[in-house]
């Protein structure tokens, strides 16, 4: 049975399995709201107060809800970030020597682009799987987050308390210890086609399974003399319980990416090969379920690469704008790949994304990716890489992301 047929069949089968085999939404509500929906989603309601205090159900609003929203935004933004595997170029024919020659010495970079194109009429299909398990947000472990919920300003005088007054109870707070698990499984199907010798077009169709589990334990921080009598968790009396857990997941189409590459400078020594890359990310993924960013992003990138024997360094510089917001990012990838043999290539990239006008949360993310590509059989190339954050205290980060992939020409 031809390898191509097997490859294609397996890719389609895996994609269909991913798209249909997983629960679409295991619980009511959006995955992205797993934190903000804790304690019924409207802040924390403690048990009604006993006499002689005025009977009321103290509401604690989340003074750090803004931070939670940032957390959700960071997750959705990360959902749209994944490596676009490079394709392996095969043989071209050397008319003078009468032999096929490999178009490059190596099997290509891991996440960077190189300037060379596939060649007219060539089609490459690929599939990759990544496992993303977020561990930290702005340097804090997601397993050990603390959120402070403040009391309402009951008399609306703009001041909580103050101490020594009948309104001192406003100084009480609720601290919520939060254990957050956010995971994504990302299956990306991608295709690249050589329209001309120097012009490629392609698309990436990601299928994402996102899951989030938030486990919260609330504790009253007693800052007033009568706190123990006023502020207590007691669901039997109509208040919220001290513990709240939400577990949600969803599977679906992520943000589809369309791309094009034009190799405008080739074999003009001493210059490197240069290409312009254009990329459009469409908001096809459901933002609320962490399947997409909800925005249309446009990326323009300059790609430079050049082979020095078995080693090919490369540099990618790009500028990304979102058509739906004022956000813009500078992207850079610098790295290289080294052909240990015609069938095995080692590669490494440093991948940076900098948002100059950001909000100080994950504005500059830098990762190191390293791995290998193996021409296992015929034209089939298998790849594996690990992406490690170099500044793990910035934004929402994992300890590492591993990716496995396979690609081949058709």
């Amino acid at each position, binding site marked *: 049975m031809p390898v191509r047929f097997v490859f294609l069949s397996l890719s389609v089968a895996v994609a269909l399995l991913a798209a249909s085999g997983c629960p679409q939404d295991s619980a009511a509500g959006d995955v992205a709201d797993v934190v903000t929906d804790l304690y019924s989603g409207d802040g924390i309601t403690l048990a009604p107060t006993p006499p002689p205090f005025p009977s009321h159900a103290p509401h604690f609003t989340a003074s750090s809800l803004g931070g939670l929203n940032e957390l959700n935004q960071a997750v959705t933004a990360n959902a749209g970030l994944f490596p676009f595997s490079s394709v392996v170029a*095969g*043989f071209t024919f050397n008319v*003078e*020597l*009468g*032999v*096929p020659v490999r178009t490059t010495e190596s099997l290509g970079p891991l996440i960077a682009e190189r300037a060379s194109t596939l*060649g007219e009429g060539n089609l490459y299909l690929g599939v990759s799987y990544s496992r993303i398990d977020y561990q930290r947000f702005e340097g804090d472990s997601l397993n050990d987050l603390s959120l402070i919920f403040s009391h309402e300003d009951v008399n609306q005088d703009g001041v909580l308390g103050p101490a020594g007054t009948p309104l001192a109870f406003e100084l009480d707070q609720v601290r919520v210890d939060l254990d957050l698990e956010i995971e994504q499984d990302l299956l990306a199907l991608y295709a690249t086609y050589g329209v001309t010798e120097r012009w490629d077009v392609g698309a990436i169709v990601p299928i994402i399974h996102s899951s989030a589990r938030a486990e919260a334990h609330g504790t009253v921080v007693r800052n007033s003399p009568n706190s123990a009598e006023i502020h207590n968790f007691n669901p039997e009396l109509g208040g919220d319980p001290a513990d709240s857990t939400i577990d949600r997941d969803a599977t679906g189409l992520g943000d589809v990416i369309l791309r094009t590459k034009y190799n405008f400078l080739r074999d003009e020594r001493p210059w490197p090969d240069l290409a312009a890359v254009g990329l459009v990310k469409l908001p096809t993924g459901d933002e609320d379920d962490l399947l997409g960013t909800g925005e249309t992003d446009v990326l323009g990138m300059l790609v430079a690469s050049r082979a020095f024997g078995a080693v090919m360094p490369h540099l990618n510089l790009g500028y990304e704008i979102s058509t739906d917001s004022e956000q813009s990012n500078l992207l850079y990838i610098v790295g290289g790949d080294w052909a240990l043999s015609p069938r095995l290539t080692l590669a490494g990239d440093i991948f940076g994304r900098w948002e100059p006008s950001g909000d100080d949360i994950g504005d500059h993310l830098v990762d190191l990716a390293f791995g290998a590509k193996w021409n296992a059989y*015929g034209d089939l190339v298998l790849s594996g890489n690990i992406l490690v954050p170099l500044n793990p205290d910035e934004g929402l980060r994992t300890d590492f992301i591993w990716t496995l992939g396979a690609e081949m*020409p058709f």
Partner: protein
Amino acid sequence: MRHILLLPALLVFGMTASPVRAADIAVILSAEVDAYEKTLRGFAETVDHRIVAEYDMAGDFDRGQRILAEIRSEVKPDLILAVGIWALQVIVREPLDVPVVFAMVLNPPTIIGSEPRNITGASMNVPVDKSIQILEELGPEVRRIGVIYNPTTTGYLVKTAGEAAQERGLELVAREAASPKQAVQAVNALQTEGIDALWILPDETVLDPTVLEYALLSSYRYKVPLLGLSERQAEMGALLSVSFGSSQDIGRQAGELANAILEGGVTGPIPYTTARTLRVVVNLKAAEKLGVEIPESILAMADTVIR
């Protein structure tokens, strides 16, 4: 390893067009490149017999040997088509009792040797007489044609070319070179000795980038036109280039050879063929710099003119 039955349409064509019992043909591709795919297409549309198996050795000789073993033990064809030099190299290592037709092979005598074997095919070489004819048509001032060659690679070609030049009243001035360094020295020696044109042969030693660049530079320094063997070389500055024009037509030539073998009526070894469809490129910029006027007869045969 690919093992695909070709398109039913081709099979039907092969079976209905055959005047005798349809024979089975196995194909080995050296690698998957466009030129070889077109060659196979040309072969399939010409041959009157069935292509029952097609393999791609993907440039891997070990894999090629496994393919050949499978062909011998399982497919058992009446003829093997080897597309490209690597497939032919795998085949000639083994004694075979079935005829072999190759296609898109450059300098086949260096692979199959001089002994008569059950192997013939369609090379991608340009007929030497055609190259000499084009140089002759440049004008009466072209009498001495310089060539540099490695005897182990293109010695056979130089011998034939010398005879062809002599028949046209020209002289082939040949210098041997076993390395690029010697080839550069040979360029100097030829230019010093005096030649009217330099002809680049399909020889790996001469096609070394350093040698080629040096030959082009000396072409301008000594005002000696250079005949290259690819469009790329014409773009680099050669006055002319002649190369094979269609890999699909080379496939057709191989198909005709396969028909001749499988349908009998041929006694003795069948000589390999050279490309019958050629691609000629003329560089008028180079002509101006060299002070050469390109005759109308050459311009008329040019597929591309660089202005």
